[in-house]
């Protein structure tokens, strides 16, 4: 695939990827388009059941926030969407997760391509101990036959998209570990989008950051939703209300309520949700 075309066209950087990887996206025209569909999804760690019978449709090009108290299965669910739980030996799951036509939980599913299409940003910034450039180029080098100049363009595009280019453009060859926490997290976002994903999973992306960095990353998440489907786990309810379109409230492994963020925070339908968003527990 030619990256130079898509890189030059900043508004549509995923054009090629979207066409080749998910032809189904064009067929589904009823708004809002569903990016990720979960049906009767259950997840386990050994004998312990972490998630009970989740049915959710996550809309495309929107930010969905997972909120709820600790240990209620939010992160577990997020990690099943790109099969990150494969590296946990005791983890297993039943039910269906579909991204477009792709059955995520199917054994035959190619997790390498899956994770290219579904990027992930972690709780703590985890840049590799390599240069800033090599961090962002890591994914493209794994997945694409890409010429040197195209790779440089792609790295620049990704860093611009992640709103960190101006801060790092003069030190691309310096170690990424020299950046501040907030810069590192935006670098990790750049690294995730450089492989051309359609979906970004964010596991408490701001929990290790100071307030200033947090608001920059939140702004970034809000901007990125024009182009990506974003699923975000957060403990911070202000954050969920600030930068998500939809919110799902988790409690003890179940989705209690899901809806427009505004509605969840101002007019929740369930007593549990109301207790949680008003701070009675959690």
């Amino acid at each position, binding site marked *: 695939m030619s990256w130079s075309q898509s890189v030059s066209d900043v508004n549509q950087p995923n054009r090629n990827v979207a066409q080749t990887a998910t032809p189904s996206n064009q067929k589904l025209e009823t708004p809002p388009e569903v990016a990720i569909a979960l049906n009767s999804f259950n997840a386990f760690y050994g004998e312990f059941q972490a998630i009970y019978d989740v049915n959710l449709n996550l809309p495309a090009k929107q930010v969905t926030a997972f909120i709820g108290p600790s240990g209620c299965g939010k992160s577990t669910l997020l990690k099943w969407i*790109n099969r*990150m739980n494969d*590296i946990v*030996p005791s983890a297993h799951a039943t039910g269906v997760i579909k991204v477009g036509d792709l059955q995520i939980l199917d054994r035959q599913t190619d*997790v*390498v*391509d*899956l*994770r*290219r299409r579904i*990027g*992930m940003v*972690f709780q*703590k910034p*985890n*840049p*590799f*101990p*390599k240069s800033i450039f090599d961090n962002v180029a*890591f*994914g493209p080098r*794994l*997945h694409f036959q890409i010429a040197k100049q195209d790779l440089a363009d792609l790295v620049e595009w990704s860093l611009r998209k992640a709103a960190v280019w101006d801060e790092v453009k003069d030190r691309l060859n310096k170690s990424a*570990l020299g950046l501040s926490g907030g810069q590192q997290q935006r670098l*990790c976002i750049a*690294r*995730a989008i450089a*492989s051309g994903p359609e979906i970004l999973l964010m596991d408490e992306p701001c929990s290790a950051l100071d307030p200033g960095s947090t608001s920059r990353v939140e702004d970034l998440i809000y901007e990125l939703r024009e182009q990506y489907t974003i699923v975000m786990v957060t403990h911070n309810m202000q954050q969920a209300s600030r930068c998500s379109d939809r919110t799902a409230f988790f409690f003890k492994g179940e989705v209690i309520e899901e809806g427009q963020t505004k509605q969840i925070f101002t007019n929740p339908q369930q007593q549990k949700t109301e207790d949680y968003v008003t701070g009675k527990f959690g």
Partner: protein
Amino acid sequence: MAGKSERDFEQALLRNYDLKSSAMGKVSEALVMTLLVGCGVFSLAITVGIIVLLFSQSIGFFNNAELAIDPWTFLSDNRWSIGQTQGTPRYGILPLVSGTFRITGIAMLISLPIGLICAIYLSEYASPRVRSVLKPTLEILAGIPTVVLGFFAIKFITPYLLQPVGEFKTFNAASAGIAVGILCLPLVTSLAEDALRSVPNALREGAYGLGATRLEVTLKVVVPAALSGIISAFLLALSRAIGETMVVALAAGSTPTFTMDPRQPSQTMTGFIVETFQSESLEPDSIGYYSMYAVAAVLFVFTFTITLIGQLIRMRYQEVYN
């Protein structure tokens, strides 16, 4: 009444407790301090003492009245015949140095790749059950006395592994090198594995999250992140191999040779020192006696340099994760 006596009791208890603990604290603090400083000074004094002894005795080698050995000849001449009776004695250390590095080179060719691969397997691939069997096995290997390995080199490696494939002498550099390699293997494996396992899991997750396979995660993220630790492990193995004595004294022979041929016997610096020390003709203040110190000083310089490089690499390249 009861309340008053209880209060008295409490006050007495607190007062006594207070005094005793502070007095005890001071004494034990002072004791511990003395002990710690003493141990530190002791190890430092031993190190300095050995270095002073080595270099001061080496001077005797160069101040010899009959032979007038100059340091440059000592370091650059490629024949060594001290301890041999016939012919004019030559005293170039190069055959001994080349013997040491021939054997060390072979040992590193064996222990570094195999050790690193074992470490990668243990740290990144093996299940906890497999690791719980393999790690102790490796420690048993580390516990084999070097004299046994030397014996193993002469009685097994040379006749059954080497002589069937080539014209290997009974005592040769290759078998000694292989045995030293086996000796260094657990060291490399265990230190490199420590380095790999200390790489935070967050980095592995990050790479998996980008769609890397396990091999890509290992080779492109974990190994580079652990590189300073791996290099330290390599350098430690290198200095262990250079200093190794028993295996080479048994299996490499006692002929100083200046050659690249691993089939030939060779004498290392350590091997020479052992042999000279044991020889019956050794007299105090003779050239042979002083030559041991001169060779030992050169040996020390090599191992010291390697340790120093290891420290520098660790200081310069070690990544600090918080």
